[in-house]
């Protein structure tokens, strides 16, 4: 049995598991059974894709199943790119299932989650294996609908219903754009197989149009600005392990779609594609993290931070396209490696952080950070793993987020060799934006961890908690370990994705695992190198040596006392800094421009007994500038068309008749 057929059977089994979920939904054994089966199946698919990626470099088995369109069938193919994304998806699926084993027990309405969870994983796997446009779109839509059902699982909350509505609208729009893109790719003959599309020549105009449609379609699923508005609403609305899958994995499936078409199907890129993708990515990164920093809902903060990471990935992809268009193979390989590495990393730490947020939600029932605080004392394991996730996502060494951002910066430093002026000016500016978003991300996650886990509990909900179950802790522990491992041994990942990069840009980075001391060296040691392992060991060694020396030779006594606080300790925990007050300086610096923030302080005169008030006004400019006018236009058009409901039969008939004549006329004039 080939690896492709094993994964396909896994997908079938996922669907069966989903069916089982419907049948058993009222049974109390359903939760462990469904998540257990999902865990097993994802683990099998994970191992198979890992083996495929590690062993067969050029081997790309295909299978044609006689389902779907009768003259086309359903094509499936497993190449290096699919294998890499299958690995990411099923690693996420495995750990989400493990987490679900514990987390799912607290679910109020398991019958709304259990059938769709395996179906969602199956849908994502199907997209990755599809080898013709028809199968791809069907799987894409299946994935969207399954995740939509999961978003709507707590549909009694009005906010969730609104999120679900917005999500389904944006998902339909995205699929429509993809449909048009594949229609253009297939051409008038209707060659829908990916092999045929790959072999065909695409006119520059068509290819450019496909790129724009693709940015609309895949970009809306991934959360590219300005198509991101649904994401921070929909991702947090789902149960936390599903949020982790949506943020950590499903956005990557969207990026897979983008990479598959631009790097594989569309032929040689043009340089302006890189520029467009680069600028969109930079804007997405900066805007996403700025919104995350203003947020006080923990899960929504994580969702906004997903938008930022998508931006970072798109910046690297844009660089890779620009380099590829100019025939700079090595630089292109470097940028694409950075993108794939960051995709892998983000799936790790974003899942970890959503699991942590889920654990906090289970323990306290709160997502609002301003009602939490001090959880580090009562949830030690959760807080430690969450801290690891925070450091990793803030791109700080020695964890994995830094390794991929470092590669992205190295790719940016290759840009002066680009011949186009627009690119050479845009790339350093986008590099600055990238650095800005990395710094803002660090501030954002200082806030997320500091307000939620440190300090004193702000409400009784936060003070009376206990650690969550072992399954959840296990899933978080594995992810935290992987974050560290990928950070200190980045060479393994870089070599792992080398076959993918080689197949897409025709070049690859030098083999990293042969370099002494396990450093990573993108081009040459005299230019740049980084050794996560040594950095980690040095920090660990010098910290423990310092602790030992200080405790041995200086002093080891410790006295607990009241907090000093400049001599005026304040009893109430409400005097602590809150999420809003932590973000205030940054809000003042960046928010006035990016969100038109206005702060109003109403301070009554001495003797006046009115309470002082402080209010902040904040606008989402994308929402107000783009979506509100569109919604208004649609509403206006609907209002006008409403009249058509009240015509006589004769008029309806004449409308049909006119339409028929018009179409015949078009046909007559066309040919």
């Amino acid at each position, binding site marked *: 049995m080939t690896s492709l057929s094993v994964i396909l059977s896994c997908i079938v089994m996922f669907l069966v598991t989903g069916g089982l979920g419907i049948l058993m939904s009222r049974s109390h054994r359903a939760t462990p059974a469904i998540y257990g089966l999902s865990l097993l199946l994802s683990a099998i698919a994970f191992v198979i894709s890992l083996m495929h990626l590690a062993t067969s470099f050029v081997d790309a088995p295909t299978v044609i199943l006689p389902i779907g369109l009768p003259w086309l069938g359903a094509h499936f193919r497993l190449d290096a790119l699919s294998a890499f994304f299958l690995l990411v998806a099923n690693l996420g699926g495995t750990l989400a299932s493990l987490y679900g084993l514990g987390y799912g027990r607290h679910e109020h309405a398991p019958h709304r989650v259990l059938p769709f969870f395996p179906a969602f994983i199956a849908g994502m796997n199907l997209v990755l294996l599809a080898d013709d446009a028809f199968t791809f779109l069907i799987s894409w839509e299946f994935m969207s609908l399954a995740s939509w059902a999961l978003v709507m699982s707590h549909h009694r909350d009005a906010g969730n219903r609104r999120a679900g509505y917005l999500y389904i609208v944006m998902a339909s729009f995205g699929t429509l754009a993809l449909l048009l893109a594949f229609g253009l790719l297939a051409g008038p003959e209707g060659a829908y197989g990916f092999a045929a599309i790959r072999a065909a020549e695409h006119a520059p105009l068509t290819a450019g149009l496909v790129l724009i449609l693709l940015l609309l379609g895949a970009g809306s699923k991934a959360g590219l600005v300005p198509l991101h508005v649904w994401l921070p609403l929909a991702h947090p609305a789902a149960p936390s392990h599903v949020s982790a899958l949506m943020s950590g994995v499903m956005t990557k499936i969207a990026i897979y779609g983008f990479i598959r078409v631009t790097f594989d199907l569309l032929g040689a890129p043009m340089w302006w594609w890189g520029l467009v993708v680069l600028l969109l990515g930079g804007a997405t990164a900066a805007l996403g993290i700025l919104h995350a920093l203003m947020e006080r809902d923990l899960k929504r903060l994580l969702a906004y931070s997903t938008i930022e990471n998508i931006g970072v990935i798109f910046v690297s992809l844009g660089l890779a396209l620009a380099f590829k268009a100019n025939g700079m193979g090595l630089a292109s390989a470097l940028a694409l490696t950075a993108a794939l590495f960051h995709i892998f990393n983000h799936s790790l730490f974003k899942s970890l952080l959503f699991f942590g947020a889920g654990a906090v939600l289970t323990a306290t029932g709160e997502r609002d950070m301003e009602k939490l*605080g*001090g959880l580090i004392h009562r949830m*030690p394991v959760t807080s430690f793993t969450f801290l690891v996730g925070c*450091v990793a996502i*803030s791109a*700080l*060494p020695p964890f994995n987020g830094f390794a991929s951002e*470092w590669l992205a*910066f*190295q790719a*940016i*430093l290759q840009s*002066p060799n680009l011949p186009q002026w627009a690119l050479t*000016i845009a790339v*350093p*500016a986008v*590099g*600055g934006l990238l*650095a*800005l978003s990395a*710094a803002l991300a660090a*501030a954002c*996650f*200082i806030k997320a961890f*500091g307000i939620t886990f*440190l*300090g004193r509990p702000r409400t009784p909900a936060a003070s009376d908690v206990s650690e969550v179950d072992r399954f959840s802790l296990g899933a978080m522990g594995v992810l935290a370990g992987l974050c560290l491992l990928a950070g200190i041994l980045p060479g393994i990942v870089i070599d792992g994705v080398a076959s993918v990069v080689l197949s897409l840009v025709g070049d690859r980075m030098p083999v990293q695992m042969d370099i002494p001391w396990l*450093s990573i060296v993108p081009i040459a*040691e*005299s*230019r*740049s*190198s*980084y*050794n996560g392992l040594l*950095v980690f060991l*040095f920090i660990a060694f*010098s*910290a423990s040596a*310092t602790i030992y020396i*200080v405790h041995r030779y*200086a*002093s080891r*006594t*410790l*006295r607990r*006392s*009241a*907090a*000093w*606080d*400049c001599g005026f300790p304040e009893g109430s*925990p409400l*005097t*602590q*800094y809150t999420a809003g*007050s*932590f973000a205030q*300086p940054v809000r003042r*610096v960046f928010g006035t421009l990016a969100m038109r923030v206005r702060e109003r302080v109403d301070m009554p005169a001495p003797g006046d007994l009115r309470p002082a008030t402080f209010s902040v006004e904040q606008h989402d400019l994308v929402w107000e500038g783009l979506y509100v006018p569109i919604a208004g236009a649609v509403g206006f058009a609907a209002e006008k068309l409403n009249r058509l409901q009240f015509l006589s039969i004769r008029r309806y008939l004449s409308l049909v008749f006119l339409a028929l004549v018009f179409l015949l006329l078009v046909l007559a004039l066309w040919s």
Partner: protein
Amino acid sequence: MVLISALFVQAFQMALVVLLAPLLTGLIRKVKARLLRRQGPSLIQPYRDLLRLLRKEAVVAENASWLFRVAPYLIFATTWVAAAVIPTFATGLIFSWTADLIAIVALLGSARFLLALAGMDVGTSFGGIGSSREAMIATLAEPSMLLIIFTLALVAGSTQLSTIAGFMSSPEVGLRVSLAIALVALVMVAIAENARIPVDNPATHLELTMVHEAMVLEYSGRHLAMIELAASLKLLLYISLIVCIFVPWKLAAPETGPTAYLAGLVVYLTKLIVGGALLALFETSIAKMRVFRVPEFLGAALMLALLATLLRFVSRSL
């Protein structure tokens, strides 16, 4: 044998930076005091302070977590590792390729991340104010720093400090506008990063504009000693960074023997003294800014760094 001597030089550098850091702080305090016509504390006063702090018992707030107690050591260790790979008196140390300039900045970012969290751990409003302002300063200082690195890397073709220093001491550099602007921006960033006047005042407590001191307000004893040492080390690191990039004279090349190392060491000490004295002079001649002037100051640094990167493209068109 070569390996052993290389390891020895590296170990010497690590010891050197830790031992010199308090002396540099003492020197700056002394020069500032003399400029104000005060006698000032002795040069070795920082050592005495550190030793005393180390010997005292540590008083920790009742609700402080493990993070609060571990953070000082991690902050110190991270800063130390970053300082160990900067060429001070010699280039091409055996572990210098462990971290390039981007990684050094990121290591300092890790230290800052931990410090800001430690400031929030006890749950006092002073800690929060310090952490939140530190985060704001970092959001502007880090991108400026990276853009400066871009400029340097585009000039020297490398982000490896030893290579950059080697290139900058070669005659082909010449005078470049982008480098001059990068130097101005780097000095501005260094002032902000080290909490010096006019951004923050290292000599104050009990002032509403303080940033760094507010974060470490709850620390005492050995924990405070570690944080103070890390702060001195960071100052030494930044001055070493500036001198190794912009005045890389007499840096000993790898494996050149003890005479070259000795010469490099003497010159390095001279550079440190001059750098410290200049900093003290600058600090006494300027007033501290309001907190919300700081974003403008750092914004200007960011813009200068961006300008330097852009002008780099003009210089390239030779």
